[in-house]
């Protein structure tokens, strides 16, 4: 719970998860480093295909194998390297110490079993309780996540609930064994905006009362701003910027982060059109050499095309993977000027 605790809960070091397909090796995650402290929310943001989901599945040990494989790196969780554990040992951690909720609440619950059955299953797997006690705890969990009439809902099937309710059930299920870490992979993407806010609020409340850490994976900077303490920005299988949430929004130092910020509307600025980052994410089968952002970057030079930069600490708790981050200041000023003229 101690936010300033020296010992991080999760420490990911140089994680590389590759997929060996017929077309070639897909380097979905190619050297990711970050830490999550107990009770902290780490936001992981990036476009589709940047490797954020594969990173989370690697932590869970749920990468489909074959074709996927963690080829390098460590995932230290409370002093154990999860990459070294057997499937059997991982199963004791999954759903117990680390649990996960997914993007699609509509399809994430098994349609042929009742909600109670599915929550009880998780409880009975990790706690030594009988069926009745597990059901009682399931009802309690449903109540905690704000589902009305939990005694009745517990006997219903997923198709009888709305998307928002199903995501609440998923949250109830994932928290039923008091996890230290909850990985949320785009938990609100498939939901209506009003429901999104409710779910995020619920997650923030539960985080307080359970004292767990959250790894929030999203492509939505709004969600990041709402819940995160620290943020890792990912691009093409790597973390490109890693800092606390205030700094990220006030003073982004990587041209990609800056591009992302410009592509969302801001209340205090009037602009004609929002700026999109030109081009699209390169295919993981065919990454450009050097810095992987060089084909879309306004600051790219020959150096960027040849040598890939390392993640560099530029100030206390702020890391950036860019050769020219200092020059970003110039672009920021230019943009501010044009905004003023208009």
């Amino acid at each position, binding site marked *: 719970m101690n936010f300033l605790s020296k010992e991080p809960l999760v420490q990911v070091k140089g994680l590389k998860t590759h997929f060996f397909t017929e077309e070639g090796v897909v380097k979905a995650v190619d050297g990711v480093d970050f830490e999550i402290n107990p009770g902290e929310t780490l936001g992981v943001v990036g476009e589709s295909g940047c490797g954020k989901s594969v990173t989370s599945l690697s932590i*869970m040990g*749920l990468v489909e194998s074959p074709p996927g494989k963690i080829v390098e790196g460590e995932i230290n969780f409370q002093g154990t390297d999860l990459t070294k554990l057997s*499937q059997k040992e991982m*199963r*004791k*951690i*999954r*759903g*117990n110490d680390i*649990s*996960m909720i*997914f993007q*699609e609440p509509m*399809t*994430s*619950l*098994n*349609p*042929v*079993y*009742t909600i109670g059955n599915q929550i009880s*299953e*998780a409880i009975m*797997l*990790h706690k030594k309780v009988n069926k009745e006690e597990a059901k009682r705890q399931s009802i309690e969990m449903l109540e905690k996540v704000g589902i009305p009439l939990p005694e009745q809902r517990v006997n219903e*099937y997923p*198709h*009888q609930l709305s998307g928002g309710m199903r995501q609440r059930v*998923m949250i109830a*299920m*994932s928290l039923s064994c008091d996890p230290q870490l909850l990985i949320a992979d785009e938990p609100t993407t498939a939901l209506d905006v009003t429901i999104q806010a409710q779910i995020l609020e619920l997650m923030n409340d539960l985080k307080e009362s359970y004292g767990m850490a959250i790894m929030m994976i999203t492509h939505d900077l709004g969600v990041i701003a709402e819940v995160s303490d620290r943020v890792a920005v990912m691009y093409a299988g790597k973390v490109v910027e890693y800092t606390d949430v205030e700094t990220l929004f006030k003073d982004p130092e990587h041209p990609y982060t800056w591009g992302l910020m410009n592509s969302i509307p801001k209340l205090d600025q009037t602009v004609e059109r929002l700026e999109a980052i030109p081009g699209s994410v390169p295919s993981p089968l065919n990454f450009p050499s050097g810095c992987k952002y060089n084909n879309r970057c306004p600051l790219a030079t020959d150096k960027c095309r040849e040598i890939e930069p390392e993640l560099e600490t530029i100030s206390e708790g702020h890391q950036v993977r860019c050769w020219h981050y200092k020059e970003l200041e110039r672009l920021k000023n230019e943009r501010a000027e044009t905004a003023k003229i208009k």
Partner: protein
Amino acid sequence: MINYILRRLLILPFILFGVTILIFSMIMMLGPYQRLSTYIEDPSQLKGGDVDQLITKYGLDDPWYEQYGRWVSGVLQGDLGWSESAGQPVTEAIASRFPATFELAIFAVIPVVMGGIWLGVLSAVHHNDKLDHTIRIFSTIGWSFPTFVFGLLVLMVFYGILGWFPPGRLDNWALTVVMSDGFTEYTGMHVLDGILNGNFDIVVNSFRHLIGPIFTLAIVWWSFILRITRSSMLETLSKDYIRTARAKGVSENVVINKHARRNALIPVVTVAGPMVLGLLGGVVITETVFGYRGLGQYAAQAAAQLDYSGILGVAMYFSFLLILINLLVDVSYAVIDPRIRLE
């Protein structure tokens, strides 16, 4: 659930009505002279008698609805006419042959369903392994063989060469035992009767005769169920809720046998209806190939001898069975899938 079954049962008479209309229109496509044979109990009536007079007597020139009324009332009273090919009334012919076919069908369906699903799941779980490839090679072979070719092959190898599994229903000595006073035919199914009479020689003997036809029927539909189960299982294993189950820490065994299999069976149940239809067709061929005295053999024999009453009787009987089986399929659908049950 009970409501669902009741609703289905209420529709049943309407479906049967449709079936009778269909079968009757088939009868009406024949001329009055041809149709006369379906109303004759004893062929000797035709000799010397005035055929036109008989046509008038049986009302074969009457408007179709009057004839339909008479035919249906006959069917309702269990009177399906005289079967020339069997030399007895159609109802009796069907009743005496039904236990044999029922016995065969039950013994064939069990390995088809259990084995097919088991192998299908195995194949999907070991997706693209050696085991999966082996199973798929055998299923492709099984599926591509026509029943009559495979039946003849089985007969040739296991009877002609090895002498293990003879055709027919029983050996002559066993037939004598079954016909004797000391043996009570409770059900007409020899395996069951053998057990009930405590005569295990009969059980063994009738099994030896059953294995060939069972194998022939099973091999085709085995491959069918296996393929459907495999592809459905593969699809289910990539579903989000399987990932959820794994994320809960559920072991791979439970993931497959609890979370995936039940969902994967939904499409399998859907094809079970058409499969039964195919099985009945297979029964006709298999029984003929193996000289197995059952309904299928009777149907083939009636068709070959243009025994209209026989054909129509068997057709009626098979459609009735199909309706019942489809009802069973729909009910099991609802048992497996709550989304259907609670609609």
